[in-house]
């Protein structure tokens, strides 16, 4: 997606449509990416190293094609930093969904968040980058790591194999082939649409003029201040609503996590002979409760209040 985005950006800047990617190339790249991801996903008999190699080759070839597309076009937006951050973000995202241990998945997600923050800074959205790092890497990921640690099952000490102490739900993925097919078919269609229709977007092609005026006003105010002014001018109701949502979700999370639950396994489970017995009152009191295993009438008495 990042590569597609960069190409879209280039097309918007240059305003030309020559030497677009052929659909066959896109198809092949998506196929290779799907195979690589399928091999990378934790499974019983797949080989992760092979999948990693396939995925890396796919990513490299995509990067080469995009480089060839960008060659000869003077663009101030796409520098080496963009490629570095995109590659880090994509590799981190791939490792998030393929790593068998949840803690490492969370840490790779932190890596992805930092790379995204770098991309945001490249796009002159400093406030969003800071907010992303603070909220995601600071708050959400800490919560995730805490929950992972709280809910982690006990590990066997001394076993040195890489998958030791992991539950079966972590080491075996569910329907990896179908998931890869669907996901990369979606990505292929998105890439094709973006590559195909990028020249038919007049507002994007005419973008540089208003962005120049915006950068002038940003130079006067700063990006953060202009975002704040925009928020309180145009989006005031949404802003208040988001505050309300945060409060409600905080209260809801406290209520949900505080509730004391009875384990389902410890619940009363009737055995077969209990079910087959007829539930008739033992004594003559019509309001007595059929309680088995006792002859004490006080235990059979219906609660009066």
């Amino acid at each position: 997606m990042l590569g597609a985005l960069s190409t879209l950006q280039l097309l918007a800047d240059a305003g030309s449509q020559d030497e677009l990617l052929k659909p066959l190339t896109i198809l092949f790249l998506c196929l290779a990416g799907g195979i690589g991801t399928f091999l990378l996903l934790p499974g019983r008999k797949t080989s992760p190293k092979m999948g990693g190699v396939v995925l890396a080759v796919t990513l490299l070839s995509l990067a080469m094609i995009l480089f060839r597309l960008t060659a000869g076009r003077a663009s101030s937006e796409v520098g080496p930093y963009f490629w570095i951050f995109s590659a880090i973000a994509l590799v981190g995202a791939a490792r998030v969904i393929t790593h068998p241990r949840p803690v490492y998945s969370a840490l790779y997600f932190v890596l992805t968040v930092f790379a995204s923050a770098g991309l945001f800074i490249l796009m002159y959205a400093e406030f969003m980058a800071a907010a992303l790092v603070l909220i995601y890497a600071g708050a959400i990921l800490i919560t995730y790591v805490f929950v992972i640690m709280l809910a982690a099952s006990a590990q066997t000490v001394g076993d040195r194999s890489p998958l030791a102490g992991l539950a079966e739900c972590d080491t075996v993925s569910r329907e990896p082939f179908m998931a890869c097919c669907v996901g990369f078919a979606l990505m292929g269609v998105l890439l094709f649409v973006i590559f195909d229709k990028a020249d038919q977007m007049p507002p994007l092609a005419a973008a540089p003029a208003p962005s120049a005026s915006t950068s002038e006003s940003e130079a006067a105010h700063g990006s953060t201040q202009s975002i704040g002014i925009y928020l309180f001018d145009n989006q005031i109701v949404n802003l208040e609503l988001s505050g309300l949502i945060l409060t409600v979700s905080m209260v809801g999370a406290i209520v949900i996590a505080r509730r004391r639950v009875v384990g389902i396994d410890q619940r009363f489970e009737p055995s077969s002979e209990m079910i087959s017995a007829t539930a008739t009152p033992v004594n003559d009191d019509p309001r007595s409760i059929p309680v088995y295993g006792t002859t004490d009438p006080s235990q059979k008495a219906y609660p009066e209040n």
Partner: protein
Amino acid sequence: MFAIGVIGFVTRRNMIVIFLCTELMFQGVAINLIAFSRFTGNLAGQAFVIFVLVIAASEASLALGLVILLFRQKNTLDADAWRDLKW
């Protein structure tokens, strides 16, 4: 990145990792929004990213509370342990 998040959401069976993949999808959407707000020159995209962050934070807190609750009931994080909810 959105596609990777979708694959992970469908594939992984650990509930925590499933919610992590939704965050990954949020990331992809946020990058797209920022980029388009940069190209079109208005600030609506950045404002939307703020709201995306708000929703992500509240969703994460609620979802992790639910995960804790479900973990206490079944003592596992396997999403297939709740297969009986299907019918």
